[in-house]
């Protein structure tokens, strides 16, 4: 693992969040750290895919920026491994805009993706959206279907059973549960949950709704908690 200047801000109270950059292109990685530090994040770099998991364990990032093409182990594999043990938000950096790669990346557990070449501001906006929820913990309890959501404690329970969700899935569920009377279009969800300002790829929403359903529904084929509103988008099921 190659971490870059980690001592400077491991306990920095002003830090907006810790970002681990996994990319084999040293120049790009360095450029990313410069930009991220300028934006107030605390970055670290890992140049190899097979070292990424150890780096995540050690650095405990708030957001993981993950390139798809990596030496040692490709980004999709890394994504699966990280997701298996952590709900850390993952943003894939992909040089391919092709449908298949994007969907594969999302299905392997990524929360979001940015297509190279990206504008720094765009990337920062995405990272901010991923770490935003750290900013304002509010005491709040929501109910959706037979689930109880403890917003501040970041926990979803069905009866006594705790359901493990990634932060993004949690945000998605909370977003729907807060306004159970409202049907959310995919575009609105992109803005609320992912922090997009402009119209973007609505496949993000589809993939994550599928993932969320597979965790919270009794029968993902016949959802009762996250309902599809045909022609519009999604809404919360009755509680």
């Amino acid at each position: 693992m190659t971490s870059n200047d980690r001592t400077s801000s491991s306990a920095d109270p002003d830090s907006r969040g810790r970002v681990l950059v996994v990319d084999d292109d040293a120049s790009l990685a360095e450029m990313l750290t410069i930009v991220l530090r300028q934006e107030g994040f605390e970055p670290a770099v890992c140049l190899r895919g097979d070292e990424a998991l150890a780096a995540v364990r050690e650095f405990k990032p708030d957001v993981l920026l993950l390139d798809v093409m990596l030496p040692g182990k490709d980004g999709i594999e890394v994504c699966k491994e990280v997701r298996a043990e952590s709900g850390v938000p993952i943003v894939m950096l992909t040089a391919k805009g092709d449908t298949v790669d994007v969907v594969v990346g999302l299905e392997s557990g990524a929360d979001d993706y940015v297509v190279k070449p990206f504008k720094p501001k765009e990337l920062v906006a995405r990272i901010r959206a991923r770490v935003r929820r750290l900013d304002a913990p509010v005491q709040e309890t929501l109910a959706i279907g037979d689930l109880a959501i403890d917003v501040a404690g970041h926990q979803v329970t069905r009866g006594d059973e705790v359901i493990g969700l990634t932060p993004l899935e949690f945000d998605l569920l909370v977003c729907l549960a807060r306004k159970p009377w409202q049907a959310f279009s995919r575009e609105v969800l992109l803005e609320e949950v992912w922090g997009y300002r402009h119209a973007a790829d609505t496949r993000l929403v589809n993939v994550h709704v599928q993932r969320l359903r597979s965790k919270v529904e009794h029968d993902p084929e016949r959802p009762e908690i996250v309902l599809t509103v045909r022609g519009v988008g999604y809404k919360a099921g009755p509680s």
Partner: protein
Amino acid sequence: MPRLAPLTRRLTRPRRGSGLGTAVGRALTVWRRSVSARVVVSTVLLSTVVVGAVSWLLVAQVRDGLLDDRVRTATAEAETETVQSVERLAGGSDFDVASQLELVAAPLSQRGAVRGYEVLVARSDADPASDLTSSGSISSPGLELTSVPRSLREHFTSSAQLAWTWTSLRRTVDGETVSVPGIVVGTQVQLPADGRPYTLYLLFPMEQEQETLALVTRSVLVADALLVVLIGGVTWLVARQVVTPIRMARKVAERLAAGRLQERLRVAGQDDLARLASSFNQMASNLQRQIQQLEELSRVQRRFVADVSHELRTPLTTVRMAGDMLHDARSDFDAPTARAAELLQVELDRFERLLGELLEISRYDAGAVALEVEDVDLRDVAERVVRQTATVAASSGVEVRVREPGRPCVCAADGRRIERIVRNLVTNAIDHAESRDVVVTVDADDHSAAIAVRDYGVGLAPGESAMVFNRFWRADPARARTSGGTGLGLSIALEDAHLHGGWLQAWGTPAGGAQFRLTLPRHAADQLRHSPIPLLPADAEPVR
């Protein structure tokens, strides 16, 4: 062939509803299309002629043989009878003409009734033109005297030599006249009673010979017919042996032409057809190899373009971020450096766009583009594009107007791509409008919807309207471009249009402006035939 038959029938049928015409047409079709039919028919025709000629010769030989034989026996018999008659006359005691005639004729008649010939005895010096009855002749009962031809009678007016000729032997049996072919042999005797020459006519009917000949002819004809049918059958079998492999080859060739390059003929044996098959296969293999090579080459090339574009992305990202950073900090720089940072930013945008379009093109080349089809109203597209390009238009001093029919112009299309095409056309038009107006026309009919972008600027030189869609093509390489197009925009637009089954066409005259027209089918699978907007704008100057 069954699939095409109705067409041929339509072409060859002389009149509507003519059954005969249909049959003739069908026969003609078979004749034109089937080698074996032609071979069989011509072989049958030729063999009929040959067999007919041979049979005719055969029958003629048989007939000649029969006749010669008959003539020989007839003349021999006539000679014998004459000698016997002369002997009878010499040994006779009557000196009366009538009884002497009777002496000659009666035994002859008796013998003739037994041996099957008729007899006529007549005076030789009577006028041949006169009737035989008038000259006191004696004949077998029932014999028509006209059975003796005049030529023979004439012969005996001047000669006493034995003579014979063909005749048609007429007899009256039970009141009916029966005519059979026969030979009449004449000999001359002198009656001692009056010393005058009398001719003995012996008429031999040839009914038996006729029957034999008829039998032979019938047999030969039956044999002929059988032979011709047999030849036809054999020819058909042989033709089939040749034609079947040819038909197989045709089918395989058709499949090859349809792109199934792995199709091959089966090679059996070592004859000409087998060699044809193996040559054919060799040709197919060569073709397949060449095509595969070309495909591979083109694939490698496309892959290269995609890879290059792809590989450029990561460094471009870094440069982009560095550029952004410099751009954001340009207020801290001195004026030239700040300007450099701005230029860097602008060119990076352009570079990024170019790279994006290169990747887009390589996706088209790889056939990896999928449409997300929905109902798109071209009026909305036009409105949106005009709004998006308003800034660029204003800075170029161009007013973009939309002319629409006031009813929906909906077609099934990928809205994002259609908008990109139209945006491309409009920015292109603004770019070349030379501060004159740009008019966007939208219209639709039952089958298609179209959008046309008209400018009144520099226009296009003859022949350029097809070239504008070429990649990186520029009307005038020296001309400055304001909107910073990449040179790929129209190529991508054209690919997009084709992907929709639509048309993208250009019209233009030098200094008369240009019009680009996009026509899309209303339903995704429809074939375009007509566009609701003419490609040649109504306000175009007439061609001089």
